[in-house]
């Protein structure tokens, strides 16, 4: 064999191995369409126009409780939610860092529930919070901060190392959405129109230690500094989810921190505020108080829209033609989905429109 031929066949082998690996990798990666749709939330952001006044970071209490469409329709605020299931505070921080690579919003909203987790929690949630991120130093740092003991950095770089064993679990979905997911969200909002009243929400069991962990404080501080440096105003919120239980002792620590750094902090679990927003826990939640349904989210967004406009003097941007066109598309999809879910509920008794009562319960929730 000539030298040229050797080089050629070597290169051919390497290239075909790489191409086939990439192809196989895409195939075995979960598509998060029928089940666990939350897996696509983080990647959803990169399809936006990167022109937001407000960006939310945080866990499910963000992406299920606030509706950017309402904020747009009522107050002309362009917003995006970078939420994911059990998003840990360092993940929120790195997502914010990542967001700042694309745009500079006026306000960053952080939901403080994740202050309760000081250590990496769960591989599946890590995957959903991180894999959707585009590659950057922020993503790498985020992976390193989030990995549980059993995980490896390499398997984030090459997800095939993690998902290869799905080869025998592939479904039609894996082929249909091979080249990308269909949009399921509305600027990061996960719409649910079903209703399940909150009943008998248990009181939180007493803890031995109510102080938040050091790592959490460190990242909250980093987040504050990051916002300050980028001239972004940081708004801390605690969404009106009844469970996981939000202890008064925790609330006091956040209140204190916010006061010390002159940050606004809104606790929506506050009874007066609940009344002000008009939330009714018998109709405005879809899973017994864990998360708002679309009715609750809209009420909350109406209130928050007013607050944001006033406190941060955000302009009404509905007159900007390009932005309006961008939002029109989302609003149409939003209302169509809303109607469809209502229809499904009427006919099948569930939002997905599954004929039998076998609505799968595999969706991981906070």
């Amino acid at each position: 064999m000539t030298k040229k031929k050797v080089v050629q066949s070597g290169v051919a082998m390497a290239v075909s191995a790489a191409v086939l690996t990439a192809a196989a990798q895409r195939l075995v990666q979960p598509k998060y369409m029928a089940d666990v749709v939350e897996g696509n939330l983080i990647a959803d952001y990169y399809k936006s126009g990167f022109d937001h006044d407000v960006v939310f970071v945080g866990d499910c209490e963000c992406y299920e409780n606030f509706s950017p469409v309402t904020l747009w329709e009522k107050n002309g605020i362009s917003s995006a939610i970078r939420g994911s299931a059990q998003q840990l505070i360092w993940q929120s921080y790195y997502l914010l860092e990542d967001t700042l690579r694309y745009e500079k919003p006026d306000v960053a909203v952080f939901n403080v529930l994740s202050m309760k987790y000081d250590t990496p929690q769960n591989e599946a949630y890590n995957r959903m919070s991180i894999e959707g991120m585009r590659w950057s130093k922020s993503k790498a740092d985020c992976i390193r901060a989030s990995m549980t003991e059993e995980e490896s950095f390499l398997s984030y770089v090459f997800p095939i190392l993690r998902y290869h064993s799905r080869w025998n679990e592939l479904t039609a979905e894996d082929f249909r959405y091979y080249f990308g997911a269909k949009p399921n969200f509305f600027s990061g909002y996960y719409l649910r129109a079903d209703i399940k009243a909150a009943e008998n929400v248990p009181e939180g069991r007493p803890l031995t230690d109510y102080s938040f962990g050091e790592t959490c404080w460190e990242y909250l501080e980093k987040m504050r500094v990051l916002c300050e440096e980028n001239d972004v105003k940081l708004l801390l919120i605690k969404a009106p989810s009844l469970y996981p239980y939000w202890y008064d002792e925790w609330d006091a620590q956040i209140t204190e921190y916010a006061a010390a750094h002159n940050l606004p902090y809104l606790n929506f679990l506050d009874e007066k505020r609940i009344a002000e927003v008009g939330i009714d826990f018998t109709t405005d939640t879809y899973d017994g108080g864990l998360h708002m349904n679309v009715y609750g989210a809209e009420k909350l967004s109406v209130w928050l829209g007013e607050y944001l406009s006033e406190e941060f003097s955000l302009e009404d941007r509905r007159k900007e033609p390009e932005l309006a066109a961008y939002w029109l598309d989302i609003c149409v999809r939003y209302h169509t989905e809303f109607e469809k879910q209502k229809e499904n509920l009427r006919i099948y008794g569930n939002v997905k429109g599954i004929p039998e009562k076998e609505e799968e319960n595999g969706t991981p929730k906070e």
Partner: protein
Amino acid sequence: MLFTDSAFIIGLVVLCVTYFLIPKKFRWMLLLAASVLFYAYSGLSNLLYIAATTVSTYFVTRKLDAMAGARKEYLAAHKSEMKREEKKAYKEAANKRRFRLLVGLLVLNFGILAVIKYGAFAMRNMNALAGLFGNDNAFPIPQFLLPMGISFYTFQTMGYAIDVYREKYPHEKNIAKLGLFVSFFPQLIQGPISRYDELSEPLYAGNGFQPRRVLFGTQRILWGYCKKMILADRILPAVTVLISDPEQYYGVYAFLGILYYMLQLYADFTGGIDITIGIGQVLGIPLAENFERPFFSKNITEYWRRWHITLNTWFKDYLFYPLSVCKPMLNLSKWSREKLGKTIGKYVPVYVATIAVWFLTGLWHGAAWNFIVWGLMNAVVILISERMTPLYEKFHAKYKWSNTRAYDGFQAVRTTLLMGCLRMFDCYRDVPMTFKMFSSMFTSFNFHVLWDGSLMKLSLTGWDYMILLIGTGILLTASLLGRRGSVRKMVLDRSPVLSCVLTVAMFLAVLIFGAYGIGYDSSQFIYNQF
């Protein structure tokens, strides 16, 4: 560090590329650096042990050579004035001093091995013994972390030292080169145990890049990973389930346990060796083959010539022969010839040496009575079949059908099952349990477990069984083809394109069908603690 660690794989690729890029005279140094790094990765303190072996061996072999040189010089200088008897006496005296030095080295190195690997085992037995006299826990049980591959490098290095003593070749004058011979990293995990005269030249020479060699080496590495990750690691959980609960898994389960364990052991061990030899091949360093399709053997003696070959030839050359032809043994033979008759006297050395070797082979496999019993059972089977050889020969001469392919197949299956039964000692926690499980195969006929779905409860799914069946089929086919020479060469000669396609296919197969990552325990290679 294991072959399956991502750090190992990445490091290996970096090493192979760097090896061919740097000037030839530095290549062996790169290998040494890689070996030290590899060893340090598994525990810095482990470096001390391997350094102790290297340094002690270096100085002792140097002295051995110097003494031999002095002896030769003296004899040459006094050639004319010495009588034959004087010469002989002088030689013997000189060699005695050299022998003492060698023994010192052997005691030191095997001593380290013994204390670390067998200290706890010895103390437990001492305690049990003391317990008989009402003295419980009289001896403290030491706890050592077993340095990786200590058995392998100790054996390899001591073989080298004995060869220098025997003046088979001069000692290695560069201590760093000796260090590389001792610690050459692909061998540290599962062997093979190499010989200095075979390994040293290609190890120290800067080998050139040869496409064919690199291709074959890569294919062999991938083939090893296929065996190890697709088959061995997949079936390992089932083996663990089957042997961990003998109360539940007896009878047919015990038989299945044998089959699963044989597949696991074979795929894991030969796979690891394939990776090692493949790495050597890529770098242009031929390493000794350790297996020759062992399960096609006609009998156990042959099986042991074809399984873990380098360990068995080591035992043969450095223990079996020296032990059976040493003066005391020959005297013992003479004595028993006089007292017990000619036939017995003739075979005494063979028997004593065989039993000693297998006792130690058992001990090599693990510090437990299970392994010792296993080794001795092997000795018994081998000695019996040796005694029966004339009978076999008559049988084959009389019955022509016993010389057919089918009968060869029967013998291969018989060998496999016999070895499997002996291997039960590896699995169960103690010797009585092993015998209990063995007899359960003939007393408990719970065949229903084969079709009532019980097989699916051994942590293997239908898909796993499918992969295992296909994989074993491919393995068997490759072995059958391999009888006629290198399969890789056959494929390349037939079609270079096919050869390349198969390479890529093996890579993808490992990547997709390998049992690794979260959800699979990254199981340790069975052999790496030996």
